[in-house]
């Protein structure tokens, strides 16, 4: 793990082609993900601060817990 950076922003991104609507992300990161009527994730579009440790931790759980590996954390400062 090493030292975690606490400055900067991140967003969670989903690859809609890979996503099959398992819905694990909404369970693991309810702060970031909502589920639509067909079971596919609607992800909060505004960036979150990396310093927001709880949210970042759930985003990591969601990323790792996705059965299709469709999620990805994108840090906005690196691009």
């Amino acid at each position, binding site marked *: 793990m090493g030292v975690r950076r606490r400055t900067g922003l991140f967003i969670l*991104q989903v690859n*809609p*082609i890979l996503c099959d609507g398992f819905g694990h992300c909404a369970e693991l990161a309810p702060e970031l993900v909502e589920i639509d009527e067909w079971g596919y994730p609607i992800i909060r579009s505004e960036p979150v601060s990396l310093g927001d440790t709880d949210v970042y931790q759930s985003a990591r759980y969601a990323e790792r817990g996705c059965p299709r590996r469709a999620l990805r954390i*994108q840090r906005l400062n690196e*691009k």
Partner: protein
Amino acid sequence: MIASSTLPRLMHDAGSRPLSLAQHEQTFAATTKVGSLVDELDASGLTGRGGAGFPTSVKARFIHDQRSLHKYVVVNAMEGEPASHKDQTLLNAHPHLILDGAEYLAGLVGAKNIAVCVARDNRAGINAMERAIHERARRSLRGPKLDLHTPPQRYVAGEESALTHWLDDNESLPQYRRTRPHVLRIAHAPVLVENAETLANVALIGRFGAAWYRGLGTSISPGSTLVSVSGAVNHPNVMETELGTPIRTILAFADADTDPQAVLLGGYGGSWLSGEHLDVPYCNEELAAFGVSVGAGVLVVLPRKACGIVETQRVVQWMANESARQCGPCAFGLPALADGLNHVARPTRDAKQALQQLEERCATIKGRGACHHPDGVVQFVRSALEVFSKDVARHVQGDACKGSLESRRYATIPQLERAEELIWE
């Protein structure tokens, strides 16, 4: 040389058959080396004619800056829009003009290959292009290598990532691009995808220069464009117009109904424009105020006696069927939109609830696909609900308008195919 302020440009000397290479060079003069084509393109202000209207010079420069031994130029003459016939008209008139433009751009970005893509069902277009490529190959062995490809006839197959993916020996399905701008690749080689009409314009700019090109059109959208007029027209046709011509004038030229209820602009992912605003100039900067764009140059004229909701429902149903079914919001959302519109078009007791759901679903689906197919449909549905709001209100009360009972339809769509019969390879 064609005078700078006269039409037609692209359709200059267009006969009933495609011009041969010799005839073509007599009409337009042989291509000459240009000092700096990208600067000329910049100065000309040419934008893509495939629908998105992105500046051609920016795109060309972006691919030019990619470091790679091999590059491709892809000629997109797929024309998935059922109401658009401009690329086919161009193929059947001046196939060499398209190829000239492709060779100009290939020289600019440093591409060694040009892939010409014509949809499989467009037999006449394939013949014209095959012959044009053959004529060029016989004349000279220099220059980029020209190849003809025939991807399947699907609406999304003409989307640039789907086209590139197909050329890369795969299915013609749109791809997810995590960041934009994104470099599309065929076997690791960067690809420049341009619409056929854009390339024909590039060929003219390469010959006559940017100042000549700006002889027509407005200062923001210079030049001319091909429009396909269909719907309430005596003869559906394709014609060339100066950008910035009032829409009513275009309709009058096309011998169409000049006092229609509404006009569908851009294509089936475009928007309806109410009949009250028909005096607005046909160019993106003026149309933007009404949330409409020139798009792929489609004009579907809807007369006063027709029902806009029924037309919209049919188109949305076809668009839902043309989805590649890769992304959930598109695969499930578009059929849901079509179903909701059906409840409104042929009023049932669920109509009110369906209308409310339609608006909610539009907001949910928007921007959640890998390509812009669902976004286009959402925009189309939203514009229909706005432009035909009076009719919608009446329909929801259970009082369907007379037009919805008539059998004549104005927006043409190909026959609906069953999902399992759609060909993607």
